């Protein structure tokens, strides 16, 4: 029995190949060697993991270079690099979420955080809460309200404009010159830096309403500049995949074009359009820079978007970190900022998840 086995191993087809258990052996020895090395210089779990991974990759490549030759070794090296790069790319994601969770949960669970504003919360209040070890006062109600109102107005402006533009591009333009211009400009708009969109709204309302006009509505206009191209792009893609047979069937029945679009084309594409709009909302609700220059800062509740400064979650985080309410005791401000950051991440993740669910449940049937 033993003789044919060894002969098969020496056959031309299987010669120069590592046995299948090699990776396991290399992995095991890499972990052990890494543990030994870490014990010499001071142990920590993160360093152990990194060192094991590096040793595993090096061992794999080296053994392959000795037994299998240069080409296979290069292949294994690139595989290690690619997998390593992916793990490195995950590090900041994990780190950001971990930092926000650890710092944000205590503040988010503090009583009254979601229900109160920062009205009347001054440096003296924060100093007192640190000195007496009482709970941190103040909350994000005004900022949440502001975020919701500003985003709502931005959506009210962007969705009709964006949707109608995509309808023009797909249904009416027939690829003429003007539609090429619009497509190009929408691409350009996608690349507008968010702060420039904010400056535009500030400059526009500064000229029309007098300098220094800062209201929630100005912020909503700034956000629409960022939101419209996203809505146009996603709706355009969705309208394009509506099968032409549906339109032709409607025309054959004598239905007017506008009714065909309203009753046939849009209902077919509505799921994709809705998920695109949700993603666009998720994008603009986290925008900070345009709000800084258009909505100002407020510590009290303001539910009127047309008058007065308005707070929002991103600017709340920014101001609490950059200019703590009490400069001598920044901890209460940091706690509020991280809690607001956690709230914002949760909001954005929920919107993203919602968009995917909408798209998956009502996915248009394209016949493919």
């Amino acid at each position, binding site marked *: 029995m033993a003789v044919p086995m060894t002969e098969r191993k020496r056959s031309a087809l299987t010669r120069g190949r590592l046995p299948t258990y090699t990776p396991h052996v290399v992995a095991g020895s890499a972990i052990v060697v890494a543990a030994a090395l870490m014990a010499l210089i001071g142990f920590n779990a993160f360093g152990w993991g990194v060192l094991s991974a590096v040793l595993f990759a090096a061992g794999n490549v080296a053994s392959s270079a000795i037994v299998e030759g240069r080409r296979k070794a290069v*292949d294994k090296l690139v595989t290690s690099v690619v997998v390593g790069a992916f793990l490195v790319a995950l590090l900041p994601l994990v780190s950001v979420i971990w930092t926000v969770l650890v710092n944000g949960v205590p503040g988010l669970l503090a009583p009254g955080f979601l229900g109160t504003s920062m009205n009347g919360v001054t440096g003296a209040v924060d100093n007192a809460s640190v000195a007496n070890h009482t709970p941190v006062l103040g909350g994000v109600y005004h900022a949440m309200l502001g975020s919701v109102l500003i985003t709502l107005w931005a959506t009210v402006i962007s969705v009709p*404009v964006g949707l109608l533009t995509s309808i023009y591009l797909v249904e009416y333009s027939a690829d003429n010159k003007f539609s090429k211009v619009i497509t190009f400009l929408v691409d350009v*708009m996608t690349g507008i830096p968010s702060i420039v969109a904010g400056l535009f709204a500030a400059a526009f309302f500064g000229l029309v309403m007098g300098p220094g006009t800062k209201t929630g509505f100005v912020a909503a206009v700034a956000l629409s500049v960022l939101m419209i191209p996203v809505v146009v792009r996603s709706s355009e893609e969705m309208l394009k995949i509506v099968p032409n047979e549906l339109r032709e069937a409607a025309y054959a029945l004598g239905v007017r074009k506008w009714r065909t679009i309203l009753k046939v084309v849009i209902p077919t594409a509505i799921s994709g359009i809705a998920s695109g709009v949700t993603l666009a909302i998720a994008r603009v609700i986290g925008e900070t820079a345009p709000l800084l220059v258009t909505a100002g800062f407020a510590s009290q509740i303001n539910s009127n978007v047309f008058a007065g400064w308005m707070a929002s979650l991103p600017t709340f985080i920014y101001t609490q970190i950059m200019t703590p309410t009490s400069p001598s005791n920044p901890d209460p401000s940091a706690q509020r900022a991280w809690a607001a950051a956690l709230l914002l991440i949760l909001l954005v993740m929920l919107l993203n998840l919602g968009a995917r669910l909408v798209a998956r449940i009502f996915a248009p049937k394209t016949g493919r």
Partner: protein
Amino acid sequence: MSIITKPAPKAGTRQAGPGRAGDKVFSGAALGAGVLIVVVLFAVAMFLVIQALPTFSAAPGDITGGKGFASYIFPIVVGTLIAAAIALVIATPIGIAVALFISHYAPRGMARGLGYVVDLLAAIPSVIYGAWGATFLAAQLKVPYQWLADNLGWIPIFGGPASGTGKTILTAGIVLAVMVLPIIASLAREIFLQAPMLHQEAALALGATRWEMIRMAVLPFARGGIISAVMLGLGRALGETMAVALVLSSGPLIASLIRSGNQTIAAEIALDFPEAFGLRLSELIAAGLVLFLITLLVNMVARWIISRHKEFSGAN
């Protein structure tokens, strides 16, 4: 299509009247929305120019720095370019590798989920990256910066003394890299997935290893797409505000990346605009205009490469 949309009007079909009005209104509204986008973009440029004009006609001594607009804008333009360059140097190789991992290395079943994970990175608001960079990352990087200043201090970009807080342009660049990475990765992934499957299978059938197959059949096909993905990432990195405003403790233009100093256009606007008035206001708007023009140029070149690439690609 146009034959169907414009049925010849016939005498006696009066019931078609209201429908025709609806058609006109609807197509007019759709066209109007398209026109509105064109108008808005021109308005963006026009209002920025109008509000920025006082800066260009003001006496050089009245501009911040006292030497005219050119010498005011030059350091922050260079700072913006430095931060974006750091971001791209880090994000480009990692982004391409992540895209390759998702398109060609990860098991089929996992690839979709991993794509979502990368998209999650893009979904996190920039202010949160900024807060993370300022509180967590900057503190972690203090020790490496000190080491760089001690051991590689003779290279100008690592000139000491290292920042005591870690809030340097290099930290800001790393945070920007994290924000740009998902853009490059997701665009490059799309391109890699479009690479002709027949070429890849042919390469494998000829005995190529996986890396040789990617090098011969995937990367040459994707070159244009990768370049444009990097350009779009550059556009984002140039215009990103909050990460820099929160992370960088700004100052005048210096060569060292690990000392506090340098400033970017976007962060300068965000930090100074709320308190600005009069000439300072129009200075900042002029700075915004410069930023707008730079990103416009970068994005247009990127789109041009994409459109050129589309004509040659075998996909579609």
